[in-house]
């Protein structure tokens, strides 16, 4: 039997744009490459917003990546992408270029990690061009549902949004009519109809997509699998002050940066908590946000240290001195990779009590929850965390090993085979 050809499609390549979904997509491709019986390909979108210069060759959007015959860039113009309807205005991208690519490789499975910057039309085109191929789609956030960067957070008060509808979406974007949101939803769903299997890394994300209209039969929870890092951080020194709390990720509003800074300001005078910010993309935030950050950082210089962007490889070293990791997002999150990483290094987590954070961190077992968006609640939780070495020890012992990439790959291979078989069983409806 020949190898299973699996094409992964990602909206960015991690070498160009760091991000959780990107990092996972590359890890998954690398993991599959090491797996006998699987012949993986990675097609990662590249474009003017991430590349320093146009990398596409004349007449084709495709180019090889770092000499690896299994990895490709597909170049799409950012300005051709309709961020509202999630489609490329350049339809030849699908009808010509991506069609050529699909026919050249004829994958048995197309596993999409994302369709952003490429467009949901790709799903229909895969089905037209390769009627037998299994189409699997991993959902990383709520972009198909929510126009506000897929966060499902209301625009006017940053409240969490449990459910989209044309009327509610229009409340968030008064300049866009309910009818426009209706068309958007129908358009995305029209293309999503070609997906055989949706994967949701968290149950809460799956629930929201089911409520939105994806049939329960077509979606299942499958956590991100992670490659085992080369090194594990040792245990932090216990006796000495201060108690170190680490933040990893983008310093942005949705990631709870303000809540975290406010909470640090609300700690009791004698608190020994110290916050280490390992954060990227501060320069991409609004000027207002950057000014707020600078001001807070100056006020709390003795409690907060800003360490700036970091490389994934540096994690063990950065974790070394930390006791806790904090995930204070004000949006639902999906399954934050930093939770898996903290757990791998044996660090209990302080997180918001909503969405993927509440689901992946068990309050009182391997971490502590605080009321999402509530700085006072976070301050009290930090005081509780830093006040009791026994608690820290108990929670550290409660941590379970994160889902490993090899288990994940095994499950995916089963799922690919099931999907291919069920497509054959019903007869290809091309």
């Amino acid at each position, binding site marked *: 039997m020949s190898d299973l050809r699996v094409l992964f499609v990602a909206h960015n390549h991690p070498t160009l744009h760091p991000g959780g979904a990107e990092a996972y997509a590359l890890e998954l491709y690398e993991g599959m490459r090491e797996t006998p019986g699987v012949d993986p390909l990675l097609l990662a979108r590249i474009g003017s917003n991430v590349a320093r210069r146009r990398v596409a060759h004349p007449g084709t959007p495709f180019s090889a990546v770092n000499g690896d015959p299994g990895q490709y860039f597909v170049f799409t113009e950012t300005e051709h992408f309709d961020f509202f309807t999630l489609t490329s205005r350049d*339809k*030849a991208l699908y009808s010509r270029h991506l069609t050529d690519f699909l026919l050249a490789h004829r994958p048995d499975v197309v596993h999409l990690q994302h369709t952003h910057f490429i467009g949901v039309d790709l799903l*229909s085109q895969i089905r037209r061009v390769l009627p037998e191929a299994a189409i699997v789609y991993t959902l990383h956030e709520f972009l198909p549902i929510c126009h506000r960067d897929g966060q499902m957070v209301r625009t006017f008060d940053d409240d969490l949004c449990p459910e989209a509808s044309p009327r509610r979406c229009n409340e968030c974007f008064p300049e866009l009519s*309910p009818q426009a949101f209706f068309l958007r939803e129908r358009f995305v769903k*029209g293309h999503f109809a070609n997906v055989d299997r949706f994967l949701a890394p968290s149950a809460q994300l799956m629930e929201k997509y089911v409520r939105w209209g994806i049939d329960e039969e077509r979606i299942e929870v499958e956590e991100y699998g992670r490659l085992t890092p080369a090194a594990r951080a040792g245990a932090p020194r216990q006796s000495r002050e201060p108690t170190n709390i680490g933040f990893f990720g983008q310093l942005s509003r949705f990631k709870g940066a303000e809540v975290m800074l406010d909470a640090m300001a609300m700690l009791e005078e004698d608190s020994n908590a110290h916050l280490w910010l390992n954060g990227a993309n501060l320069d991409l935030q609004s000027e207002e946000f950057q000014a707020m950050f600078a001001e807070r950082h100056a006020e709390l210089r003795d409690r907060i240290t800003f360490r700036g962007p970091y490389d994934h490889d540096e994690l063990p070293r950065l974790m070394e001195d930390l006791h806790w990791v904090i995930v204070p997002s004000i949006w639902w999150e999906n399954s934050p990779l930093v939770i898996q990483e903290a757990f791998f290094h044996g660090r209990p987590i302080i997180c918001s009590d909503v969405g993927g954070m509440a689901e992946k961190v068990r309050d009182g077992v391997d971490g502590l929850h605080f009321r999402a968006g509530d700085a006072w609640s976070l301050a009290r939780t930090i005081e509780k965390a830093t006040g009791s070495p026994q608690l820290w020890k108990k929670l550290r012992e409660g941590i379970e090993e994160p889902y490993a990439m090899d288990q994940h790959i095994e499950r995916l291979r089963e799922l690919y085979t099931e999907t291919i078989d069920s497509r054959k069983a019903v007869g290809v409806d091309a």
Partner: protein
Amino acid sequence: MPRATVAEKRLRKALDQDDDALRELLREEYASLDAEARADLMHRLAKSAAGRTSGSPTLSARLHGVREVLRERLPISVIDERQPIGLAVEQILGIDERSFWINGWARDLEGGGRIAVVSPEGCRVDLGDLAFRFERPDVVRFYAGLGPTDDRDHGFTAFFELPAPSRLATGWVVELHTADGAAVEVLGPPVETDPQIARASILGELDARGPLTGPLAVEHGRFALSRLQERIVSEAEIDTVDVYGEPPEAPEVSIVVPLYRRLDFLEHQLLHFSVDPEVAEAELIFVLDSVEQSAELRDRARELFALYGLPFRVVNPTAGSGYAGANRHGVEVATGSKLLLLNSDVIPDRPGWLGEMCRFYDAGDGIGALGAKLLYEDDSLQHAGLYFHQLPGTGSWENAHRFKGLHRSFPAAEVAQPVPAVTAACVLVDRERYEEVGGLPLHYVQGDYEDSELCLRLAAAGYENWYLPSAELYHLEGQSYVAEARRGLSDYNMWLHSQLWGETIAAVMERFDPHTAAGA
């Protein structure tokens, strides 16, 4: 033979000869006639010369030459707040070659002065009893220094017809003859012949002179607007038909979709149509009513066809002609025995709707128009059949939607039944029956009532209009033809609709209960 007839005959002959002969004849024989006789001669000549053939600009120019020789010139009206007599013509609109619309004002001491217009070719029309007169506060103020007059209705507006076509933009003369024998004249402004501009001006004038259903509309506006509408539609012809893919051979149904400005709807419809085999068997015709977008539409259509592979045609008319006009062009190229008229902002809820409608239509006995269940984006009912509601105090009937705003599953809206009318946002009709009744009417201004009139015509021809709830589509009402310049228009359209169909409607509504389902 009376002298006037002899003169007319001689002049007709001279008109066919060279200019010098004509001029000589005029000077020598007719310049000495009295003013009235000359005016009469001019009028007869213009009428017979231009009226017999379709006329030509050359003939008009020669007739104008005759008029300039024969015409009795009156003193030019001077607009001066110390002069008791004043005449001004602000606008002359060409409705068609023989009918015109004039706006202006005339002021004289006693009031009751008569206004006459003389066409460039010499035809004379007395607007005395014809014109709609109204108060012009600006004119009253202007002449305030002369003291008040009994008659304050200085303004005049009129739709009038000439006995023969007039084709010259300049050369109109308007005269004012006062009761005590004084007379002045002014040269009219160039005639505005663009039908869209003329229509907008008239609508503005109707709107300014009280309700759009008042006497100005009844006696003037209605005629002018109907003719302009017909002209706008008839002047638009099919320019090109772009073909994408191979349209199905001998299709049963032709789907006709006018596109107006919102070209993005095309992509949405193609996406949802492409997954419905019954739609793929039908013939799909888009008609571009916003003709300035033809290049943009071509680019999009080509790319979208390459993506979806669903064959369709795009009809490009020479000019925009509105919803009914665009449908007319679509029907012109349609080959199916059934027509499915569809708005571009209608998106099916799921595949199968077209087959449902066709089977129901065929199983029915003498169905005229068959409408579908249309939904808003929030799953409330947009359309479950139309009925007519008489507005208290006016006698006018407005189109009303049964169960509008109620949930899509509202039980009474789940019953297939005859209804007074259905919306043309989605309507299936047999092509022969459609043509038998003359299709969608063209006389409404930016529509609303085309669909109900079509249904009333079908009903009058003995067919029954039906509502079918199992065909469910979304209608993003008001998104396709954007509501612009529509203030008051629907009042006018409603009034026209009621004028034409009021009796039929009353009879239909005698037998129809809009609040319950049939048989309930």
